[in-house]
């Protein structure tokens, strides 16, 4: 195995899971997420010298993933039904784990229906834990845009967050 290959493999194994999780939140489908991660890692492999010399290889790879997911999103069938969990009956007085699962399912569906820029912002900010500045760098936009996109996304997702929760 060449040095390049060893380095790449170590990087891919280390970052693969997190990329897969981010990809899932971006597309809402584990299998599609798997494809996205593979396409992303193929690009990373092709441009490995450039990736490893980047100021932040992680930011570089995240940008590739975000762009891949965006390209697929543009080609998708837009008719994705979203169950209106928020309009359902009020939460039961006694918390139930099943309600929690249903709520998060609704949250995921609502997330996938968000405008792509808002969705990417949510994934980078709240799953990846990036700061506003880091998110802005990955998305190539201003921090103000990240702030407004986050705010709008939270506004849409709020109905799926304000439910009674049963903590394990």
């Amino acid at each position: 195995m060449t040095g390049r290959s060893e380095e790449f493999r170590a990087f891919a194994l280390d970052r693969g899971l997190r990329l897969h999780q981010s990809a899932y939140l971006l597309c809402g489908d584990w299998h599609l997420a798997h494809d996205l991660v593979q396409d992303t890692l193929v690009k990373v492999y092709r441009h490995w010298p450039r990736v490893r010399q980047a100021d932040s290889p992680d930011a570089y790879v995240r940008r590739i993933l975000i762009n891949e997911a965006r390209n697929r999103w543009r080609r998708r069938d837009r008719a994705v039904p979203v169950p209106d969990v928020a309009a359902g009956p009020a939460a039961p007085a006694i918390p139930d784990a099943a309600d929690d699962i249903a709520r998060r399912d609704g949250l995921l569906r609502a997330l996938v229906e968000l405008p792509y820029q808002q969705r990417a912002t949510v994934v980078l900010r709240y799953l990846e834990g990036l700061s506003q500045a880091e998110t802005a760098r990955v998305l190539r936009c201003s921090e103000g845009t990240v702030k407004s996109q986050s705010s709008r996304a939270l506004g849409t997702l709020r109905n799926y967050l304000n439910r009674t929760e049963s903590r394990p």
Partner: protein
Amino acid sequence: MSSPEEAQLRDDLRRIVQTGALAPDLETIERRGRHEQRRAVALRGLAIVGVAGIAVGGSVAAFRHSGTPGTAPVAAPPAKTAPGQRPSSTAPATPPQLDNVAYVRQHVGAARNPANSVVEMKASGIGAGNPPETVWTDPATANQMISWVSGGSKVTTWQHQYLDSHRVINVDDTQVNYGPRTWSYRTQNYGSPITGAAPTAPVNGVSYIPAATIKTMLAHGNVKIVGHPVIEGHHTVELRVSLGLHGRAETNYFYVDSQTFQLVRLVRVFFPNSAQTASETSDYTWVQRTPALTKLINHPHIPAGFTEVPPDN
């Protein structure tokens, strides 16, 4: 600093994805990466060769045009394989040049009908409500034998095309209906005398488009490569050729064999994007010319005992 909502969102997202598990298939990823790298290099090289080829082709064409009056300018084909010939078995099935419109246009335009062949076509969609037809065409004479089923019985018509003594195109149409056991004959006259050579395409015929006409269509239409499907066992290049202003008059889809550049299928869409749109599809098969086949196409055969009736309309 984050609000309770943001904290909950963060927590929810982590729970949503915690079921995910990925073991990246590194072998596949590296193999794909190497393949795409090679492809990118090849495409960059092709772009350079294409630009150089156009420049060289233009120079050759200009030289030939100025050097030999009366000779049509023909750019030198960049192919290793002459049109109409199959390449050696070591050649790739789909060389990268097949993504280059100029290359494919040149080879399709240069392709000739296979020597000593006749064409069998399965044509459908010819006119609204008309049944599919089997059309045999002899490129040497432009004569056609066309068969279809009408009212449960087979009908065959022979269309023979010729110039009369005034150089007017005439088409003799002999039609045999095997149901009622009848036959009819008529001659269609195409008006004014023509100058030059007799047409090589059936003026009254169906579907068959000779190589020269294809070349003209490719030269004057807006050509795009839209795919590489397998048609009737042939690896093909699918060319979309739009004719008329903004392609409104007719859009043709040519499926040409990726090695011989012979036509395999032709789909003609008339008046695309309009309420009057219609399409016809013709699958081409080139068949070795034999005396029996030549006779069958060029000489109407009226079975004994059939009754002559007046032609329709």
